[in-house]
């Protein structure tokens, strides 16, 4: 699995590490990890509803923060569980851009086995950097 839940960190919250040689895949996997934090069986999410996201930030890790925050926003406002269908990141000058197409459906308690609600993404030990040709993201979700 391209992400893992870290056992002995963030006692009351959930710490996650995602890693991939492709930066866009790290964003995708980080989003999947956020959904997995809330739902035991993300494979049960039907791709019925789509949303597009365009984000910019001059710091790459904060771009990840904004992306994850957007998934939480859709969960709270439209009760949508969204997975990443397509995502691209690009650096233009000193700014990072993200364009993503997301798809999913509204939460259905009879099919989506709940875990815990995610309140927010924290800045605590937030990082996204390339190490030995592998992009590694680390973030803590507030529960």
């Amino acid at each position, binding site marked *: 699995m391209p992400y893992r839940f870290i056992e002995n960190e963030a006692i009351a919250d959930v710490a996650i590490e995602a890693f991939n040689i492709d930066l866009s895949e790290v964003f995708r996997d980080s989003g999947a990890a956020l959904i997995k934090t809330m739902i035991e069986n993300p494979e049960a999410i039907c791709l019925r509803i789509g949303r597009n996201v365009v984000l910019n930030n001059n710091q790459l890790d904060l771009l990840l923060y904004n992306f994850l925050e957007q998934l939480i926003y859709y969960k709270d*406002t439209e009760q949508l569980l969204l997975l990443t269908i397509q995502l691209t990141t690009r650096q233009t000058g000193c700014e990072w851009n993200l364009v993503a197409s997301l798809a999913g459906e509204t939460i259905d308690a009879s099919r989506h086995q709940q875990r815990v609600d995610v309140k927010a993404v924290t800045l605590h030990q937030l990082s996204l950097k390339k190490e030995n040709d592998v992009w590694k993201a680390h973030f803590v979700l507030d529960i």
Partner: protein
Amino acid sequence: MPEVDKLHQISDVVWELPVSYKPGMRVPARIYATKELISSMDDAVFDQISNVAFLPGITGYSMCMPDGHSGYGFPIGGVAAMDTQYGVISPGGIGFDINCGIRLLTTDLTWNDIKPHLKKLIDRLYQRVPAGVGSKGFIKLSRSDFKAVVEQGAVWCVRNGYGWSEDLELTELNGCINGADVRAVSEKAIDRGMEQIGTLGSGNHFLEIQVLRPENIYDKETARIFGLRGENQITVMFHCGSRGFGHQVASDYLQEFLKVMGSKYHIQVPDRELACAPFKSPEGQAYFNAMKCAINMSFANRQVILHRVREVFSEIFGRSPEKLNMHMVYDVAHNTAQVERHTFQGTEKEYLVHRKGSTRAFGPGNQLIPERFRNTGQPVIIGGSMETGSYLLAGMNTGAQTFFSTAHGSGRTMSRTKARNMWQGRNLQQKMESEGIYIRTASLSGLAEEAGLAYKNIDDVVTASELAGISRRIARFIPLGNVKG
């Protein structure tokens, strides 16, 4: 050397990290804990509480309460009093779940009265107080009504029929903090909160039916003043916060503060989660006014849940909530920053007291607590794990040492991920039922994360608070039934 070995022991329950512990600390850090509790704290607590000591304007000590554990920015249990003139305000010292708090109410029912109805009560509460991921409340509000709610808090609810006027007197800040200004709140925050009033949330949030046994009353006179008579009296306790609204307010201003903290105000902090701005700056005041809206949203949330609880009890027992004596004991806030007057080193002045996972605990004589509590100190509700029970304490005048702050719960000792790997929700649910605690939950794996053994011993937390003189025990409640998010 483990970090715990670098602590200086000040008393049996007070431990200090001197300013030499980390270059940049403006004040020492103090941790309130028994030897057992401090030995069980993770090293991140010491790192985080010493980071808090870097914040400009911090007065006295950066402090961690006995239920403290690692968090983000501040540890959970973190307390810091900032000078209001030249100090800062930091969302990381308040938390994302602004005014997460606990409310306790009494009934005139006994264990014998509810025994035949317990499952039905919990099942009905589970239906009427939505919990879990993405839950929505029953109150449908226009955008302008929601804006009125976040400016007026529980006062709006009582005016609109969701509660009794006495509920306001028995809520910290009378259920509404003055100065909330919705113009400081983003549209995203309003989007997230609009449909969530009356919902419990998830994680460590709960709604619990409890019994107060006579042997668990430690101060009968104070308990009587708080409305508790013992005799296997049934009480109801619930814990929840400002939901997505408060979470978004915190997220918005963390990012805003990151932009200006260094470039405009030249403040350096060792953790971005401690992003801050001078309290008197335009950014600091905007966050303060928005945070107050989230404080009010949370009071409104708990007020509406109280209304639902009263409805359910009334329906099951065929008597009005008034006849059932469903009065509030008190409602306390955990995650706030409030301007309060305190005396430090002989001088009384205003401080902005950040409490993150800590309860305000004013002692006897304080003019800001209801008159009925002026001789006892304010009630302090300590929510325990779903397996082990909860406490009611009272504030003490010796609490001045912590700017009248104390613990808020048991405090975790084990990560959620580890707990989920150790226990199975279904087995835990069955075990608890065999022990007389009936649970309804939106999430079995979430239940496993909340296992009693994932928390500190609540008796140790209360003992440490009492020995330190920051609050004293009045009563202990045993869980009978629980709705978990």
